[in-house]
């Protein structure tokens, strides 16, 4: 009995301590140089989508903000992540609205189920182009139920709609749930990291990857910033 109590106490202590010593890696993604010029998209061939945008939306290959901020960069723990193999159960969605993918980059855990939704009055075909995972291509007319899918290998997968060639996005299939996609001025945050050594990787669809090593020792916030070299072409 006494041993049991001690064990329970120790276990509680362990949980509390691990919660207490949860570090955060946060920072900003920026660029140097001249980023690729983004062009307005002509949706004239799809009036039901064109009328959803008061002004034409821009291509999203390189999305920048003030002070050289770079958005849509997937920042994730590529080595040392404590949660590899723990597939989250919460649903994530990839929405087609106004002939645009929302979000432009959808990050997910390997084997995590995600819903693809068509919020438009037109048919889309969802055609991800994986090299490692298995390729499929499905039609989704308006008003049809969400398509449920998952990928079983880590990979950055380009997503296309062949009917609307300007529609372009990415799935980032990762071995961890410790990820964030830089937004609102290049900010990202990876919370709840127990003490340990980590490799943080930042991936951008045009400018490639960068890595940084970081050590979390306790309840702290480590600043890690990534700077990509932007090229116009």
């Amino acid at each position: 009995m006494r041993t049991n109590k001690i064990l329970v106490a120790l276990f509680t202590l362990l949980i509390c301590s691990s919660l207490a010593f949860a570090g955060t890696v946060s920072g900003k993604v920026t660029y140097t140089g001249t980023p690729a010029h983004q062009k307005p998209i002509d949706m004239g061939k799809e009036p039901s989508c064109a009328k959803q945008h008061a002004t034409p939306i821009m291509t999203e290959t390189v999305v920048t903000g003030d002070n050289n901020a770079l958005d849509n960069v997937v920042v994730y723990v590529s080595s040392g992540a404590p949660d590899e193999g723990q597939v989250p159960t919460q649903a994530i969605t990839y929405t087609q609205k106004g002939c645009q993918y929302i979000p432009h980059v959808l990050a997910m855990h390997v084997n995590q189920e995600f819903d693809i939704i068509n919020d438009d009055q037109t048919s889309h075909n969802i055609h991800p182009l994986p090299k490692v995972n298995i390729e499929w291509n499905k039609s989704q007319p308006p008003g049809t139920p969400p398509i449920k899918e998952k990928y079983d290998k880590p990979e950055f997968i380009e997503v296309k709609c062949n009917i609307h060639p300007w529609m372009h996005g990415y799935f980032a299939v990762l071995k961890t749930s410790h990820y964030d996609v830089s937004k609102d001025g290049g900010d990202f945050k990876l919370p709840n990291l127990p003490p340990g050594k980590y490799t943080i990787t930042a991936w951008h669809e045009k400018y490639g990857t960068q890595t940084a090593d970081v050590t979390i020792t306790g309840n702290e916030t480590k600043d890690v910033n990534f700077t990509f070299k932007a090229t116009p072409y």
Partner: protein
Amino acid sequence: MGMNPLATRFASADFGLRVLTMNSLKPMRFISAILFTAIPCTAILVLTFAAGFTARASAQDEPLVGPKPPVVVKPMVSHIGNITGHAADGKYDYRRYCAGCHGDYGDSNGENAVWLDPKPRDFTIATFKCRSTLTGTLPTDEDLFNTIGRGVTNSNMPIWNTFTKQERADLVAYIKIFSPRWEKEKAGTPITIPAEPPVTIESISHGQALFAKLECWKCHGTHGEGDGPSASTLTDSKDNPIRPYNFALGGNDSRFKCGSTNQDIYKIFMTGVDGTPMPSFADVIQPNDAWDLVHFLRTLQVHRHSKENEVLMAAHGVIPPYVDKNPPPAADTNKAPGGGQ
């Protein structure tokens, strides 16, 4: 003197062309003409050979990458009815008849591949166009067997009916050695195709409504001529330009990439053509609706004799607008006369 009037006219033209006739050729001129032609030609030939040798020499100077490793023939098998194909038995035929396009390593990099459009299948990724199974799954052995025997129309894949059934089964087994998917996954389950209902002008009309609703016309065009608004932008999964199928081309012998029967059309749009922009509609078309769409698609083959075109002719070539006999409750309840099942 001695030159015919036409030649004289040419010879005196401003652009200075001299037209030589046999009469005007004096021996010295003849020799100098030959020399003038021969010297540059020889020079070009010598230069070409020299360049060739230099290229060859520099190729030899490149760091050695070594010979490519031999193809490991895994003990893959295929089952077609009561025939069992063995990869080892398909090796000779593959290397003799298939490797020229599909490549020794099945990676679609055969020596002819650069000249081909569309490109040969890449067996290393095991993505196949003609399947009876759902999109993203492996085809059945029969699917591959049928593709070899049928060939792929509008492509350079010939009809290989010169092979015996056993040889074709062996080839099906052989192409499985190129992708690890064949060891890890089972082939998909063929979709269930219900019996075909009779062709009526109503089924054609409903098919036309589906063609519009599912936006098939965005690529295939309103008359199925492959000229829809998105047609010019289409690329396959390897970024090579690709055209949507033109239903109107061809006569009685017109075929689809994956067959020529009504069942084949049903399979093509329900399972999709993997590796191309043609998606799968299995999740969005009900089986009987699918047959109506098949009936309409046949009428787009305007030069092909078919029972669908006969029914259409009997209706004076006019497809009536589709009237939903079982509209949803909130919708307009005007029923077509004689409707209901």
